[in-house]
């Protein structure tokens, strides 16, 4: 088992665990908001919450798997003063590559969380009870 394979397995394990944690946090805490959005209809809120959670899982894990591949990158070498291919052959280079992959995935997760959250807040402010609409009666034309 070389370093790239162990980097893959670490990346997948951490990414999936983080996705599950974020999805559960969103799921438990957005129920209050959804109940308010749907004016107290509990069943509807629960089912919409479930649908949102499944969507979150699919997008996040899909993103994590798509970004899995580690390609050797070009790096400037100070000794030879030239760009050389950075090979992953030590624990140090594995941590460097893994940290970039994981960090960008965590930032994407944070973005997803905030998008979900602001969507809910916007829906909430849109679903506030409004004043009943006054339908204007057509004004009769004065007879000629």
């Amino acid at each position, binding site marked *: 088992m070389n370093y790239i394979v162990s980097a893959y397995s670490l990346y997948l394990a951490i990414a999936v665990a983080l996705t599950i944690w974020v999805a559960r946090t969103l799921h*438990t*805490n957005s129920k*209050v*908001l959804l109940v308010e959005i749907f004016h107290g209809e509990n069943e509807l809120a629960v089912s919409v919450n479930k649908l949102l959670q499944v969507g979150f899982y699919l997008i996040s894990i899909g993103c994590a798997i798509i970004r899995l591949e580690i390609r050797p990158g070009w790096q400037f070498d100070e000794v030879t003063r030239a760009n050389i291919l950075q090979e992953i052959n030590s624990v140090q280079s594995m941590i*460097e590559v893994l940290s*970039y992959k994981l*960090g960008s995935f965590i*930032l994407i997760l*944070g973005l997803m969380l905030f998008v979900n959250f602001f969507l809910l807040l916007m829906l909430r402010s849109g679903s506030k009870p409004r004043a009943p609409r006054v339908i204007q009666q057509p004004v009769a034309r004065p007879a000629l």
Partner: protein
Amino acid sequence: MNYNVLAYCLYLLITLFVIVYVGNMLFRNGCPFLLNTFGGNVQLADAINRILLAGYYLINIGYAVIVLKVWKQVVSLQEMLDVLGSKAGAIILGLGIIHMFNVAVLAAIGRKKGYLILTNKNQQP
């Protein structure tokens, strides 16, 4: 295990500790403000507070982990301490600046909405 790996471990420990500590403090002390904003609805304010905390953790830890990529090669203990100090210091300084900016924004909002009234204690009506 060379100095770089040791430095990475120490860096992650320090930044994670600071981030979790600051996040907990914000979580506890941001609650009254959220309660005020959402008209005293405790359940709603709590839920929103928890979502915000998770977002804060993700953004901060994500950035702190990404920064690991660009470290130079460390060959001695002294160099390791130098690099460790500058990197962890940058993260902590950034957190501090963001935090002060947040407090300033909250104070401005509070003054605008009338929660925060700075008066002289001698001039009580």
